């Protein structure tokens, strides 16, 4: 039997279903549209036009750049369960062209991740990039999201120190933790009164098999640097599923997709977070 026939024979045995053409088409359109928007924003400058509709609030909030990292996290085997890992669809993937993460790039990446889960407008971009001089690859971004319920901050913290365990601890309300098929652990919980009376933070913490920790928090408040945290709405602006989806994006790595790095260069209004 020749090589081609041999390959065909094995393919026939393996590939009995074929591609889902409707799904491929729909997802390519969906991801392609967002990717095109990001590229256009990067090329034309200014804010990420399609993703930043609506009012820009006056305040320039700054929250703790290590938000969501406090406390000792202990694994609670009782709360672990194996579940499928529905990786979110995204206009970009980790395998796209990348470059070292920047504060602005992290904020742009968060804008994109948000656009996958909500149509609400964003504003007031804050970021803290890796500090190469300290050998620190961690980065942080914060964005204000505003829907009919009022403005509130969404934050992401990506850490590469390793040694993270993940899982629930006694300080976490409504905690759920699951082991994903790829070896990651994702934990969702709620913190109340952490920053101010009535403050609610809905948190998703992903500890990946490669040791990277991704913490996404949706709040019901905004923070003004040096002034304080103000509760602006009864509940956080995103659901647990939405913040989990953001944490599960594959591109939260020491290098971020180039399209985000480019878009971040012109992201406004942007403020670098204090160290």
């Amino acid at each position, binding site marked *: *039997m*020749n*090589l*081609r026939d*041999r*390959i065909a*024979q*094995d*393919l026939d045995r*393996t*590939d009995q279903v*074929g*591609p889902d*053409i409707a799904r*491929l*088409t729909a*997802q*390519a*359109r969906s*991801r*392609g*549209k967002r*990717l*095109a928007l990001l*590229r256009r924003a990067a090329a034309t400058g200014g804010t990420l036009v399609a993703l930043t509709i609506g009012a820009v609030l006056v305040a320039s909030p700054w929250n703790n750049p290590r938000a969501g990292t406090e406390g000792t996290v202990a694994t609670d085997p009782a709360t672990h369960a194996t579940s499928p890992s529905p990786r979110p669809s995204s*206009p970009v*993937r*980790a*395998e*796209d*062209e*990348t470059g070292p993460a920047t504060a602005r790039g992290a904020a742009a990446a968060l804008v994109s991740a948000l656009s996958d889960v909500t149509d609400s407008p964003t504003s007031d971009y804050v970021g803290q990039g890796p500090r190469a001089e300290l050998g620190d690859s961690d980065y942080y971004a914060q964005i204000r999201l505003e829907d009919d319920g009022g403005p509130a901050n969404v934050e992401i913290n990506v850490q590469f120190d390793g040694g993270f365990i993940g899982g629930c601890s006694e300080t976490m309300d409504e905690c759920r933790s699951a082991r994903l098929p790829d070896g990651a652990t994702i934990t969702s919980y709620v913190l109340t009164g952490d920053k101010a009376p009535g403050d609610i933070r809905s948190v998703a913490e992903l500890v990946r098999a490669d040791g990277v920790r991704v913490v996404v928090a949706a709040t019901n408040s905004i923070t003004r640097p040096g002034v304080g945290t103000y509760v602006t709405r009864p509940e956080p602006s995103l659901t647990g599923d939405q913040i989990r989806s953001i944490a599960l994006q594959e591109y939260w790595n020491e290098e971020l997709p180039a399209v985000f790095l480019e878009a971040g260069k012109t992201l406004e209004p942007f403020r670098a977070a204090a160290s």
Partner: protein
Amino acid sequence: MPAGQDLGFDALVRITAPALHRTALLLTGGDHHLAEDLMQGTYVKVWVAWKQVSRADDPVAYTRTVLTRTFLSHRRLRRSSERPTDELGLSESSASGDQDPVLRLDMLDALRRLTPKDRAVVVHRYWLDRSVTETATDLALSEAVVRTRSKRALARLRAQFTDLDLDPREDS
């Protein structure tokens, strides 16, 4: 597909997906999830560049090239975890089955054990039936590199599939 044909994106996907799916499976060594991701990434790029793709001489070939280059680009980023081996490509069932393992060698498994570039060369040359020159263009390699990689890959496959009947062209 002739140039200038009024082909929409949906039609291109419909026309190319079945064959591309098989090529993606071969490039990924039979990993259905990776193959699906690869196809998805390819069609996103094609959608974004649709104006250019639709004007190409051969949109199908253009799409296929995007697929291969996306695959190679993806592999470059993961090179640190690449572990090509010389082990025989025995399917799982062969390890415990009673049949002669040689009869149950899996070509997809054998392809997976080639380096990504060697695999891409084999797929282009012997599955897609592309010439050395065309393969070199598709993969952005020199013709000499295509020949070298092709020879090396075939030698490995020959060692595993002794019953493989290779066309003389395949050694050129």
